[in-house]
């Protein structure tokens, strides 16, 4: 018998009510790793991991609509935030391997991501190479059937607690564009990998710097082909910018509702601000549902950048409004899970995963079809 969306939602809600962890998620370090893997394992055991991932990858093989319902119910149940140590594996590395990986790569990695065995981190940015990814200098030299990696990556979130890293390296020293890069899977315990956590102003150590000193990985670790890394990375960037934002967006809109509920009628200006934010969140959500459903059977288009941009700036406004609502010394603002940390962390929203300026360029050039600015 085919389950209707209503039945699916009811079943998801009941399971989440019984299984969502009650304790807050640790912010960083080994405790954060254990927490997120435990939560992922519980979802896998309950048959909820990777709702829209294919069955052969260990997922549930369900529709994007059902994935959306799952995210909505997670937000309603205040399940652990999707923007944690599990984000890269579930929303970037996993989908990229699914789209471009070999059968062996898929069989090795995808089930382990969903089953909560491993964490992934991303090694794209470098000192001096953030928005301009094509200028990457970390080198991968082919030596027989291995790739030898030397260089440095920056802003690799949770690299200190990850098992695997998705990396962009320069495998053609001559080419000056994206054709010089390869997308590689690197085990974080490989000899020659050194990780240094960086303290952020939001009081966490989630950002890391990673150094590679003659790190050797088999050539079979390259995903999507040698010197095809740019196309491989781009294959899921639209996904990341659009659909992967969905879970975060649903959660954030739900939290704006909580803020409104806490805002007394004696503060009409604050209520106006929050109600306007709620409308803004619903508007972005409506666009995101459209994008996610359109992406179900077709390659996502560049309009994912509109969603990424709108969500990033929305999240910043929400955190600022929350502090204005409660005051900078309120319990809701202070503490490890307070809005104050969220406010400081939200500065990264318009930087990570393609800056707001890059998103605006993409919208202008690829959605509106405007001529490119000289670069």
């Amino acid at each position, binding site marked *: 018998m085919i389950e209707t969306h209503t039945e699916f939602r009811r079943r998801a809600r009941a399971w989440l009510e019984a299984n969502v962890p009650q304790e807050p998620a640790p912010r960083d370090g080994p405790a954060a790793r254990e927490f997120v893997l435990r939560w992922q394992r519980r979802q896998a055991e309950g048959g909820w991991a990777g709702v829209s991932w294919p069955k052969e990858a260990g997922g549930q093989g369900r529709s994007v609509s059902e994935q959306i319902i799952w995210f909505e119910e997670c937000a309603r149940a205040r399940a652990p935030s999707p923007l944690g140590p599990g984000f890269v594996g579930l929303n970037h590395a996993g989908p990229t391997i699914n789209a471009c990986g070999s059968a062996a790569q898929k069989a090795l990695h995808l089930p382990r991501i969903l089953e909560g065995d491993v964490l992934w981190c991303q090694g794209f*940015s470098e000192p*001096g190479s*953030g*928005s*301009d990814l094509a*200028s990457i200098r970390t080198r991968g030299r082919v030596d027989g059937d291995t790739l030898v990696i030397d260089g440095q990556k*920056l*802003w690799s979130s949770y690299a200190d607690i990850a098992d695997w890293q998705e990396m962009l390296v320069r495998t053609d020293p001559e080419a000056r564009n994206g054709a010089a890069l390869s997308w590689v899977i690197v085990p974080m315990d490989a000899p020659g990998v050194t990780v240094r956590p*960086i*303290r*952020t*102003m*939001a*009081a966490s150590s989630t*950002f890391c710097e990673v150094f590679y000193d003659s790190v050797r990985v088999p050539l079979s670790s390259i995903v999507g082909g040698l010197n095809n890394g740019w196309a491989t990375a781009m294959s899921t960037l639209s996904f990341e910018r659009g659909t992967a934002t969905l879970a975060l967006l649903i959660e954030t809109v739900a939290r704006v509702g909580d803020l409104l509920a806490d805002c007394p009628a004696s503060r009409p*200006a604050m209520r106006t601000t929050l109600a306007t934010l709620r409308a803004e969140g619903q508007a972005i959500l409506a666009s995101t549902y459209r994008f996610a459903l359109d992406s179900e059977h077709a390659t996502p288009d560049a309009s994912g950048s509109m969603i990424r941009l709108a969500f990033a700036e929305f999240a*910043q406004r929400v955190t*600022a409004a929350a*502090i*204005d609502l409660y*005051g*900078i*010394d309120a319990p809701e*603002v*202070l*503490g490890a899970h*307070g809005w*104050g*940390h969220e*406010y*400081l962390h939200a*500065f*990264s929203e*318009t*930087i*990570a995963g393609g*800056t*707001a*300026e890059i998103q*605006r360029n993409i919208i202008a050039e690829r959605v509106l079809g405007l001529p490119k*600015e000289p*670069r």
Partner: protein
Amino acid sequence: MKFALTDDQASVLNEVERMLDGLALPAHTEPVVAPYSDTLDAALAGSGFLDIAREDGFGTLDAALMVERLARSPHIVEAGASAIVAPAIGLEAGLRPVALVAGDPTGPARFLPRAQVLVADLGDHALAIEVDPARVQPVDSLFAYGYGRLDSLDGLPVRRIDDVATLRRRWRVAVAAEIAGCMAGALSLLVEHVKARHAFGRPLGAFQSIQHRLAMAAESAESSRWLALRAAWSDDDGDAAQAAGFAQSRIHALSYDLHQFSGAMGLTLEYPLHLWTYRLRALVGELGGAGAQARAAAAAAWPDAAE
């Protein structure tokens, strides 16, 4: 109207510059509470500049110029309340640092863990409370200043201040001057950064999208500064409320833009931008925030309508 600094003002600011030049950037490896600059505090106290508004031939404008200049630096020190507020409400010279709090006198106040006196604005009057450090509990803060609260007023020497309008006016001038200085200090760090950092083969500062927003940040810093100085000069209730509220209203956009163009580096403790970001975020909500200042400015201009 003259906008050039007098010789006396220029020499005071030169002397402040000299104090700042000798200071190393604060080592800041633990997030959240940035280190208080005891060295700068001692140099300022020794210089007598914190009492400049009490001197013949000087006034609030000179104090505001100094507070604004100090806030441009990455060093955190209590100066606004000492130099701008204290002389107007009868606090004796040298009794400092001064902490200020509105409403509940046992609520959290900036600088209280180091303060000798706490001034509490209770609405229709104020209290100057001599602080016993043993009675101060540190308060968790995310925004750089060491905050603290008194356990109670029991047994502490307290003096009543009736002229609460003057307290509030000077407090607003101090907030406006401090915000203006923080804006200018953070902006100057970023201007150097976007000249030096390259992307797509040219300096970040050569991209128009970045130029335009830094130009707007410059306009915010510049207009906040002149409005603060005007309020310090006129010592008028409405001007002071407007200056504080205007500056507060510009903080969010400016902070986001400056962080945006410093990239991920700007989010770390290894880059000093947070030393201004923290302070600016704390000042956004001081005295009720921009909305409260706007209402106070309107009430000062149209007192009948306010009733």
